[in-house]
């Protein structure tokens, strides 16, 4: 069963682009902001520097002024202090990623990243993405049940391995249950926030 979440590296570039869209930063600042915003995901320190290099080669970011006389803070190299901004291609790439379906269940990290970076106008799309994630997780739970039924029909329920299978499968089911219930709460919360935003109840949106 594909339990492992999408590795951060698979969409780390989009996360960096999103952070740069919010505020120009150098790699050392980005590492700090990643830790603040996505601490639970556990991005490696130094990830921003590598990702910025990749994004720059792809033409998605550029240094704001590489020749500027930058005085880096203590312990930070000059290269790490260079400020970057997204190019128009970078902004376009980021928007496309924000609105695309989640790549693979169980979607936690990628969905977290999108919600963390979304703007009020993105909320309807976020709600749709959460619905899709619920659909994926419910489908996975159902598939697990069908597999379990087939396995248990073949096995002697009194065998020790069958008794232990109840525990192992129960653990997997509990995992999908908690994911589904959390996603459903997220959807309801986002719907409330969207309604409040439309009604002009959020005075500060940035």
């Amino acid at each position, binding site marked *: *069963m*594909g339990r492992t979440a999408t590795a951060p590296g698979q969409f780390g570039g989009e996360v960096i682009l999103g952070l740069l869209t919010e505020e120009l930063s150098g790699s050392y600042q980005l590492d700090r902001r990643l830790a603040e915003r996505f601490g639970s995901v556990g991005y490696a320190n130094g990830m921003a520097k590598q990702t910025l290099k990749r994004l720059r080669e792809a033409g998605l970011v550029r240094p704001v002024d590489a020749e500027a006389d930058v005085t880096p803070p203590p312990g930070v190299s000059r290269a790490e202090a260079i400020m970057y901004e997204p190019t128009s291609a970078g902004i376009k790439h980021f*928007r*496309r*990623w924000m*609105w*695309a*379906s*989640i*790549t*693979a*269940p169980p979607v936690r990290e990628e969905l977290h990243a999108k919600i963390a970076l979304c703007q009020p106008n993105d909320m309807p799309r976020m709600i749709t993405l959460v*619905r*899709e994630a*619920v*659909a*994926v997780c*419910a*489908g*996975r*739970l*159902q*598939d*697990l*049940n*069908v*597999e*379990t*039924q*087939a396995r*248990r029909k073949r096995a002697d329920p009194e065998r020790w391995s069958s008794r232990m299978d*109840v*525990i192992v*499968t*129960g653990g997997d*089911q*509990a995992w*999908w*249950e908690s994911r*589904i*219930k959390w996603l*459903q*709460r997220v*959807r*309801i919360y986002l*719907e409330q926030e969207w309604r409040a935003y439309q009604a002009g109840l959020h005075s500060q949106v940035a």
Partner: protein
Amino acid sequence: MAGLSGWPAFAGCLILYGAMDALLSFQNASLTFPRGHRHVVRALADVSLDLARGELMAVLAGRAQGKTTLLRAAAGFDKPVRGKVLYKGRDLSRLSDRQLSGLLSKQIAFVEPIGPDLDLPVISHVALPLLAMLSENVAYERANTTLRRLGADEYADQRWSSLADSERVLATLAQGLVREPELLLVDDLMATLGMGATEQIGRLLHTIAREEEMSVLMSTSDAEATTWFDRVATLAGGELYVPPPSEPDGNVIDFPSDQPRSA
């Protein structure tokens, strides 16, 4: 895994699956309850589902998400303000009280985890729904047979108050099954059970449903209780999602992952 081209075809099969032989159908059913003078609570929002004959469908949801309302609407107790609930193609909200009562005594059974008011022996509780239709002897004999089938006959003479949780669940199921219904509605009955009991009772219900070609719609807050069900829907804020049937070999259908990643 289904490829990109396989998804629409699979979805097409599902439409056929649902429409082919639905015993119970919700068609865009919405149900609201007034709260105070100015607010309404959205209990069901545009709910659609098709439950085939002999199919077991679980509805997984947290507390106060519309589980009981969904089942009450399936039994015709609550009527949707929009949309329809059809049983064998008949709109439940258009039936007279007498017609609905006839359905509920013979074809649709609704069971919920609420203990009886009177502390009678289990056998009496199970026989009770039959006493209006059958002689006392026949009713009690059928109640005994049902309890035996569930492995619960050994405490047929015990009073309800003396039963353990798992025994109460079996006795409650017996109250529904004794009517030999075509549709059994089970409202979050297994929430109090431990691991082994959930597995055993779920399996037993699956076996009986298959043997009797009985459809089961069960709400639950516990994913483990869904093990022996064909489909697992989810419900939150009155919004229901019903996945397509899984492939028999348990292959995973990756719903959106292989679609083009474009806005």
